[in-house]
C-alpha cells in the first residue's frame, strides 16, 4: 500500500553544545494510506516534538519527512503554510476554536483560508458536520457547547479540507470519558468508512486502543511497535497496557 507519511531517520536536538537534549533521536517509520496510527509515550518522551516536526510547526535537525511524496524538510516559509493548509488536518488537545465564530464558521474557516469557492463551502461544511454528528449545533458559539462537541467541531474542521493526513495531538486530553469515547468512535468511523489517514499522539491507553497500530517512544527513540491486527479492542488495550508497563521502567531503574 502507498505510504502517506515516511519519517526517515529524523533527529531533533534542543539546547546548546554543552547541554544538548536529543528530543527525537533517529526515528524511522512510515504510515500507509488509510491507517490509524497511535504514537504513545510518557511525558518528555519526544512524541509531541515528533508530531510538531511532522506538522511542520517545528523543524528537524536531521533526516527527512516525506508526506504524500513531498519532502517537507525542504520546504520554506510560505510553502510550509501552503503545505499545512492543503495537505494536513489538525485536532488539538485544547480544541483551538475561535471564540468569535460559530461552529459552522469555525469549520468553514478552514475552507475560506484555502480560498474555496463560497458555494462549495456550505455543502462541505454540512457533510463534515454530518459525519461528526454536530449538525444540530452549527449555529452555536464555542462557549455554548460542551467539550466533546468542541472537539468534534475541531475534527470536522480537520477533515473538511479533505487532507491527506490528519494529525491529532492528545485529542481526548481535555474531555471526560463519555465525550472521549464519542469522539474516538467518530475518528474510527472517519478512518474506516472514509479512509482518512490519522496519526494520533496520546499517552492514554484507552484512547490509543482505537488505533490500528501503535508506536511507542521512549527518550526520543522508538521503543516498540504493536499492531492490532484481528484483536478485539479489549485485547489490544491489554497489549498496550503490557507494553506500557514495560515502558514504565525496567526493574533496574527502581532503586
Amino acid at each position: 500500500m502507498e505510504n502517506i507519511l515516511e519519517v526517515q531517520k529524523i533527529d531533533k536536538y534542543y539546547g546548546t553544545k554543552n547541554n544538548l537534549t536529543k528530543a527525537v533521536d533517529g526515528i524511522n517509520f512510515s504510515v500507509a494510506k488509510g491507517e490509524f496510527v497511535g504514537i504513545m509515550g510518557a511525558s518528555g518522551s519526544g512524541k509531541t516534538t515528533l508530531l510538531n516536526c511532522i506538522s511542520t510547526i517545528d523543524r528537524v535537525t536531521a533526516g527527512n519527512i516525506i508526506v504524500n511524496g513531498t519532502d517537507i524538510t525542504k520546504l520554506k516559509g510560505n510553502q510550509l503554510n501552503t503545505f499545512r493548509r492543503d495537505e494536513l488536518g489538525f485536532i488539538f488537545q485544547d480544541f483551538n476554536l475561535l471564540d468569535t465564530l460559530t461552529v459552522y464558521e469555525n469549520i468553514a474557516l478552514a475552507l475560506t483560508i484555502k480560498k474555496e469557492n463560497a458555494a462549495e463551502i456550505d455543502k462541505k461544511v454540512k457533510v463534515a458536520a454530518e459525519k461528526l454528528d454536530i449538525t444540530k449545533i452549527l449555529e452555536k458559539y464555542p462557549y455554548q457547547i460542551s467539550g466533546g462537541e468542541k472537539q468534534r467541531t475541531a475534527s470536522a474542521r480537520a477533515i473538511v479540507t479533505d487532507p491527506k493526513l490528519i494529525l491529532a495531538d492528545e485529542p481526548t486530553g481535555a474531555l471526560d470519558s463519555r465525550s472521549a469515547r464519542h469522539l474516538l468512535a467518530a475518528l474510527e468511523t472517519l478512518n474506516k468508512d472514509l479512509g482518512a489517514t490519522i496519526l494520533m499522539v496520546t499517552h492514554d491507553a484507552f484512547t490509543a486502543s482505537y488505533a490500528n497500530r501503535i508506536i511507542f517512544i521512549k527518550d526520543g527513540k522508538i521503543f516498540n511497535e504493536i499492531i492490532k491486527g484481528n484483536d478485539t479492542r479489549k485485547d489490544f488495550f491489554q497489549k498496550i497496557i503490557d507494553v506500557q508497563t514495560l515502558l514504565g521502567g525496567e526493574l533496574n531503574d527502581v532503586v
Partner: protein
Amino acid sequence: MLFKLAFRNMRRSIKDYLIYFLTLVLGVSIFYMFNSLDSQKAVLTLNNDATELIKNLGMVLGYVSVFVAVVLGILIVYANQFLIKRRKKEFGLYMTLGMSKFRISLILLMETIFVGLLSLVIGLVVGIFLSQFMTIVMAKMFEANVEKFTFVFSLEAFYKTWIYFAIMYFASIIFNTIIISRYRLINLLKAEHKQKSEKVTNPVISIIGFLLGCAGLVYIYHYFAFEAGDLLHGESIFTELPPKVLIGTVCTFLIFWSVSGVIMAISSVWKKAYFKGTNMFIIKQIGSKLHTTALSMGLICLMLFITVTMLSVSVSLTYAMNAQLNLTAPIELCISTAYTGNPVTIDTDENGDPVEPEEAVETKPEITIHDIYSDYKKAGYDMSLLKDHCQAEKYMPTDYTLLEYFDEDVRDRYAVEFVGLDKKDASYAENRDSYFKNAYLSVFNLSEYNKLAEIYGNPKIELNDDEYAFVASSSEFMSYGDTMLSRDKTIKVKGKTLKPKYDKTVWGFAQISMEADETGLWVVPDSIKFSVDDYIFGIMAATYNYDSGKTRKEIDDVFNPLFWYMQGENGNLVYTGEGEEPEAYKWYQNLVQENKTNIYIANSKGIYADAMVNSNTVLVFLAMYIGIVFLLAGTALLAIRQLSDNADNKQNYLILRKLGCDEGMINKTLFKQILTFFMAPMLLAILHSVFAIAFVIQYVGRYFDTTLFVTSCAITVVIIAVVYILYFLATYFGSKRVIK
C-alpha cells in the same frame, strides 16, 4: 528585590508600550510648554496690549490645564488598567509563590514611579526645548523682536507640571491597587484560557438603533448646515444649541453601539464576501469589539471631532484672516478726514434705528480741501518714512439718496440683513424708508478712484461720459449692487443721469479695513463737478518705506497716534489716548482749529493686524492646547486598546497559523482589523467636523473668502491625519510583534 523586579518590568513594558510612553512624554512636554507661555514675554519686546494679552492668555491656559490634566489623568488610569490586565499571569505567578497583594501593589507603585519619573524628566526636557520654539512663534504672532536669543525656563511651569503629573500618577496607583485587591488567584492563572462569551445582539434592535442614530445625525447635520446660521444673530444660541449637541452625542454612541449588528446582518446576506479568506474572522472580531467598546469608541470619536474642528477652525481662521487682511488692507496706511463738520453717515443707533442727520449740517463752514501729505510735512513729520502716497476726494451729494437707487426688494434685504430691522415690526416700512431717505451715495470721480485703485492694486475702472460703476467689497453689498446693475438702474448725480457701465459690482474699497466691509461706492466720470455744498472726504493712502530701516511697527508708531483724537463738542479736539497728550501732537490741534478741517484719522494695517492677533490668539492657543491633547489622548487610547486586544488575541492568530494561514494573510487580517478601529471613529469625527465647519463658515463667510477657509481647513486635517497615521502604523507594527 521588589525594586529590581519593578525596574526590569518597567524596561520590558516600555518596549511593549512604547506608544503609551511616548504619549506620556508628549503630554508632559505639551503641558509644560503651554504653562510656560507666561514667562515667554520676558524675552520679547512687546507693547502693553500684548503683555496684558499674554498675561490673560496664561491665566486662561492655566484654567484649561486643569481640564487637560483630567483628560491626561483618564488616559493614564485607563492605559494602566490595560497594562495590568496584560500581566495577570505574571501576578498569578507572584501570588502562587506567596507574594501578598500588598507587595504586588508595591511593585506596581514602584513601576508607576519609574515610568512617571522617566516620562516627566524626558517630557520636561522636550518641553523646555519646544517652548523655545514657542517663543519664536509668539514673536512672529505679536511681531515682537527677539532682542537676543535667551533660553527661557519657567520654574513655575516646571513645578506645576511636576505637581499635576504626580497627582495623575497617584490616581493611577490608587486604581491599580483597587484592581489588584479584587483579583483572585484562580482567575489570574487561568486568564489565558478564559473563554470569552459572545453576546449575540438582536440584529433587528441593532438595525433600528443604527437607523435611529443615522436619522438623528442627518437631522443634526441638516440643522447645522442650513438652519443654524440664523442662530448666530440671536441669543437663542444658548437655548437652541445644547439639545442639538446632546442629540448628536447620543446618536454618535448609538451608531457605535449598533453598527456591529448591522455589519453582521449585511454579512449574513452577502455570503460571498463573508466566506472569503479570513473575512469572517475579521468581521466577527470587529463586530464583537465595536459593540462592547461603543462607549470608548464614541468618546474617542467625539474627542477627535473636537480636535479636528477646533484645530482647523482656529488655525484656518487665523490664516484666512491674515490672507483676508492682505486683501482688504493691501497697503499700510490710510489717513482720512471729513472736510465738512459732521457728515451724515449711514449710522444707526443701538436699536438699529437710523440716526437723524445732525443740525450742524445747515451751518457748515466754508472750507478748502487740504493736501493731507503736506499738512503732515509742514508739521515736521518725517515723510521719507512713506514710499508711495496718493490722495483722493470722496463726495456725498445730497440730491440723490439710496431710497431712489435701491428697489424695494433690495431695500428689504438691505434693511433686514444689514441694518437689522425686523420685518414683523409695525413701523418696519417707515423705518426702512426713512433710513434710506437719509443715506446718500458715496461718489468718486473716475480719476480719483483710479488713483486709489492703483495704489491698492484693485481693479481699475473705465467709464464713458454717461456711465457709472458700482464698487463694493462686502459680499452683501456686492449682491445688492449686482441686482440693481442687472436691472440697468440709472443714477442721478449733480443733475446728470448715468447708466451702469458694468453688469456686475466691481470689487474695491475707498479705505483699508480689517474686513471686506466696503458698503458701496459709485464711480462717476470726471466731468461731473462737485461743490463744497456736498459732503467732502479726503483720503490719503500710503505705503511704508522700509528702506528707511524702520519696521512696520515703528512707522505705525509715528503716524498712528492721531487715532487717539476725537472731536469735542465745541469743535475742539479731545485727546483720548493713554496718559498725557504728547507735546509733539499739538500741531494737529492747531491744524484743525486754524484750517477748519475735521480730524485726521490714521488707520494702519498694523492696527488691524494687532486687533486680529488679540482676538485670535486666545482662541488659537486654546484650540492648539486642547486639540493636541485630545488628539494625543484619543489616538493613544485607540492604540493601547488595539495593542492590548491583539495581545489577547495572540491565541487566535496562532490558530489561524495552524490552519495554514500564511504570514501575508495574517498581516492582512491584522491590518484590516486595526484599520477599521482607527478609521471608524475618525470617519465619523470628520463627518461631524464637516458640518460643524460648515456652520462656522456661515458665520465667518460673511467676512472671509470661503475657499481660502476651506483650503486651510483641509491642510489642518492633513496634518492631523499624519499624526493619526503615525499612531496607526506604530500600533500595526507593535501588534505584529505581539502576535508573532
